[in-house]
């Protein structure tokens, strides 16, 4: 049965490739070996040096990603680990983007050294954090996603700041597999073959390690060098793929999951089956695109498609998987202190919010430097700034409120609109509205975006609720939706349409682009959300205690959950319209609130709401002033401000 699935996948991949190859050149005209370019027709060269290496490279790169994912998952004992979720791929991306812009000469010798440095640095950062938390899977994944998000946000900002002229950056971000000779395959094979051998050798010690640290020590195994070597191997594989073809997400996450569901029981089996699964996944994706292009369809970069395939695949796989995240390891999260006087803390936060708003309203940066605006200019400047500030603070409050609801709803410290794919769904809603409604106005966009967010969340809930929202499942499903959303966004942007530029402009949007009416609407929504949070305090208090307690206390569980999910979806949708899909405020603000000791429902929600506003105020000020007169993307700045903060927070809590 399992062999049949693999064989079926291989046959389909080959068939797809053959459609493209045969439509380019009938079999009778294929060049015979040995190839001599001087004797070949252009069509033969296209086949022998274009399509053939492309097919082989898809296999090799997919295998490399599959192996990297399997190694990472084995060493971290974390079914969520892969080059995408650990930030490895984004680290490589950032390094290459930065080198392309600031030191193109460094890339003359090839992308690999730069990609390796970036991937290594990002992974090392995540591991440094993970080590302090005993490599607890959820913590490591949070850290990895934060690093990845920050890296790709910086890389995106750099790309946007360069305009659309740097084609190589754009291509690289897309993950394109087109080949013009066999050098890519040679490089990849040179890394992959020794890596497979090393992985086979590592299988036994890794299996011993999986017995737990005590057992491993008893058998005389030294854990640190083993972990380091395994991770280094995985990082090298991921960097190689990044260097050759760019960002190809999700294959490293999907391949080991497929290997497991196909019945790979021992670690060695998994390490060997995952590359096979990865090779098939990437080949299928690339074959599909090739066949599509051969049939006259658009030619898309393969990286945009792996998300499309990987996301639904994972959602299909999830019910077949046991919840694998060991809960014991996360116990440290629950030991949080409680603030003695939450009301004072909240008042302080509200005051900070107001002071910050007034300061950023009057202060700023002009052509001649920093200062407060002159009285004569107030009439012109204050309305502009007040609109932007109001919009930014409201968006922050909305996202943070949604995050607070989701964390209460799932009793999962990682739940957030960004993590659960709600912002992804909202962005999809935005994109679909832009593409479907010609000249969509702000109201249509707001509705579309909110509907997208709520739909994503409802789909996620409907699927995960059956298992009472096991954290690992929810997280994986959310990642899948997020990847799907970014894949669709990528495909739309690749679709050579003027409307794609509108989406790009939105991704880079700044608070100053909001109309006064839009800002007022956002503020109104934020206030409504706060009122509803306080109104729903009892539910939010009971929900984290679990479904049984809720039912015992007579809560209409299904309706309460649905209502809260819709509320969170709408709030996220409205905020996403302003800040774009990436911000992490919805994750950071509730975390900060809890770290401040705001534990009970009302202080926690109100505190998150206020903290979200404060974070976004800071972000808006930074985005406006950091590179005056160039407005930076608001979402990017929110990510840049919040991530290091959250890092420190995660690090500190170990000590406690």
């Amino acid at each position, binding site marked *: 049965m399992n062999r049949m699935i693999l064989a079926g996948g291989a046959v389909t991949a080959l068939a797809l490739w053959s459609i493209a190859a045969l439509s380019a050149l009938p079999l009778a005209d294929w060049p015979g070996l040995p190839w001599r370019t001087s004797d070949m027709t*252009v069509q033969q060269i296209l086949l022998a040096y274009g399509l053939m290496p492309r097919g082989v490279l898809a296999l090799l790169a997919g295998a490399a990603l599959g192996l990297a994912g399997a190694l990472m998952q084995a060493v971290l004992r974390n079914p969520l680990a892969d080059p995408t979720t650990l930030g490895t791929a984004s680290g490589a991306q950032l390094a290459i983007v930065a080198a392309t812009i600031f030191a193109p000469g460094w890339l003359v010798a090839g992308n690999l050294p730069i990609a390796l440095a970036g991937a290594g640095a990002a992974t090392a950062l995540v591991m440094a954090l993970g080590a302090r938390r005993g490599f607890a899977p959820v913590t490591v994944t949070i850290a990895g996603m934060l690093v990845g998000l920050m890296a790709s946000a910086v890389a995106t900002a750099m790309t946007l700041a360069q*305009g659309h002229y740097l084609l190589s950056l754009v291509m690289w971000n897309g993950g394109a597999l087109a080949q*013009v000779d066999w050098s890519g395959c040679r490089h990849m094979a040179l890394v992959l073959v020794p890596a497979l051998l090393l992985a086979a050798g590592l299988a036994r010690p890794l299996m011993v390690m999986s017995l737990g640290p005590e057992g491993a020590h008893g058998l005389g195994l030294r854990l640190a060098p083993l972990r380091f070597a395994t991770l280094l191997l995985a990082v090298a594989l991921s960097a190689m793929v990044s260097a050759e073809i760019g960002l190809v997400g999700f294959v490293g996450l999907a391949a080991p999951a497929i290997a497991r569901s196909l019945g790979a029981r021992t670690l060695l089996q998994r390490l060997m089956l995952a590359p096979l699964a990865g090779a098939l996944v990437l080949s299928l994706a690339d074959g599909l695109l090739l066949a599509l292009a051969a049939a006259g369809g658009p030619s898309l970069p393969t990286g945009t498609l792996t998300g499309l395939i990987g996301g639904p695949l994972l959602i299909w796989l999830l019910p077949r998987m046991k919840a694998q995240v060991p809960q014991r390891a996360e116990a440290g999260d629950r030991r949080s202190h409680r603030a003695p006087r939450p009301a004072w803390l909240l008042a302080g936060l509200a005051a900070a919010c107001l002071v910050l708003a007034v300061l950023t309203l009057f202060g700023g940066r002009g052509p*001649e430097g920093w200062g407060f*605006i002159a009285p004569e200019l107030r009439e012109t400047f204050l309305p502009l700034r007040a609109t932007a500030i109001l919009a930014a603070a409201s968006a922050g409050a909305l996202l943070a409120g949604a995050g607070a609801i989701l964390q209460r709803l799932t009793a999962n410290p990682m739940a957030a609109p960004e993590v659960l794919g709600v912002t992804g769904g909202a962005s999809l809603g935005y994109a679909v509205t832009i593409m479907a409604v010609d000249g969509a106005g702000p109201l249509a966009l707001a509705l579309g975006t909110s509907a997208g967010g709520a739909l994503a969340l409802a789909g996620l809930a409907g699927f995960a609720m059956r298992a009472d929202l096991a954290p690992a499942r929810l997280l994986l499903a959310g990642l899948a939706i997020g990847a799907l959303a970014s894949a669709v966004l990528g495909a739309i942007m690749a679709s*050579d349409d*003027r409307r*794609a530029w509108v989406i790009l402009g939105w991704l880079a949007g700044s608070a100053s682009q909001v109309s006064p009416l839009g800002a007022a609407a956002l503020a109104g929504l934020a206030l409504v959300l706060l009122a509803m949070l306080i109104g729903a305090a009892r539910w939010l208090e009971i929900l984290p205690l679990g479904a049984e307690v809720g039912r015992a206390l007579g809560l209409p569980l299904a309706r309460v959950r649905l209502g809260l999910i819709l509320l969170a979806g709408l709030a996220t949708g409205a905020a996403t319209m302003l800040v774009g899909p990436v911000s992490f405020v919805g994750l950071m603000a509730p975390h900060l609130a809890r770290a401040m000791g705001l534990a009970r429902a009302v202080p926690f929600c109100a505190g998150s709401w206020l903290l979200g506003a404060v974070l976004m105020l800071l972000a808006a000020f930074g985005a406006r002033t950091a590179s005056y007169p160039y407005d930076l993307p608001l979402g990017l700045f929110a990510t840049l401000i919040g991530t290091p903060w959250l890092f420190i927070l995660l690090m500190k809590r170990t000590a406690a």
Partner: protein
Amino acid sequence: MVTLPGKALTRRALLAAACAVAGGARPIFAAGGMRLAAVDWAMAETAMALGHPPAALAELIGFRDAAVMQPSPDTIDLGLRGAPNLEALSLVAPDLILSSSYYSAIQPRLERIAPVFTRALYVADEPAFPKVMALLGELADRLGDPAAGARLQAAARSEFAMLAGRAAPFARRDCLLFELGDSRHLRVFGTDSLFSGALEAIGLRNAWAGRTRFAFAAPIPLERLADYPEARLIVVGHIPPQAERGLGSAALWNSLPPVRAGRVHRLPELRPFAGIPSALRFGHELVAALEGRG
């Protein structure tokens, strides 16, 4: 549209106040003309050609590289073209803002600061060259200097005619115009592009019959060049160093008939979405490159 005197006064006062605050910023007034702020680069280039350089320009840093005419050193930067800094724009206190259909999303916000002059210059499948040529006249009219527009149009036409004379010996072969992204991808300038119009104005033909093919994330794979064995390959702009290296050893590139026959010409960095000055510059560079080959 004539600006109301009262409004203009407020803006002047505002500007003076800004300068007083800033301490030492020098206002620039176009001699006798309107004070212009340009969001769109094609508009900026056209205004400069007409002798009315904008006092402020979006993405000034980027504009300065590969600019046909350099803006004066005291030109003010307005930030990103897609999201210009409205505060900086208000401080400039322009009489007219030059924009284009690319920036229609922000037009209402621009209109709150000053009247906006906008045209849809670059629209897929619509040849840009005639529109950019017409813009010389339209903008000159709007600036109250119609003679300059007619004069410049005539001068551009005669310059293209002169170039056409020099390019005549090369007219047998069509040209394929593209930018290289890396050693595997390119962006093709179709018949709707400015360069294609300039190519036709000097009596040559574009081998690529379709529209400009370039999407944000999916440029054309290099192998598509194999469909044009007879064309001249014109590489516009700077080639990234790793692409240069990759191309040297790429079997596919080296086997393309135009590459084998040495029919590849390189042009310096040029601006594809610009005005007539860039089109003329393209014409000069192209003819020089063709003649360089003999």
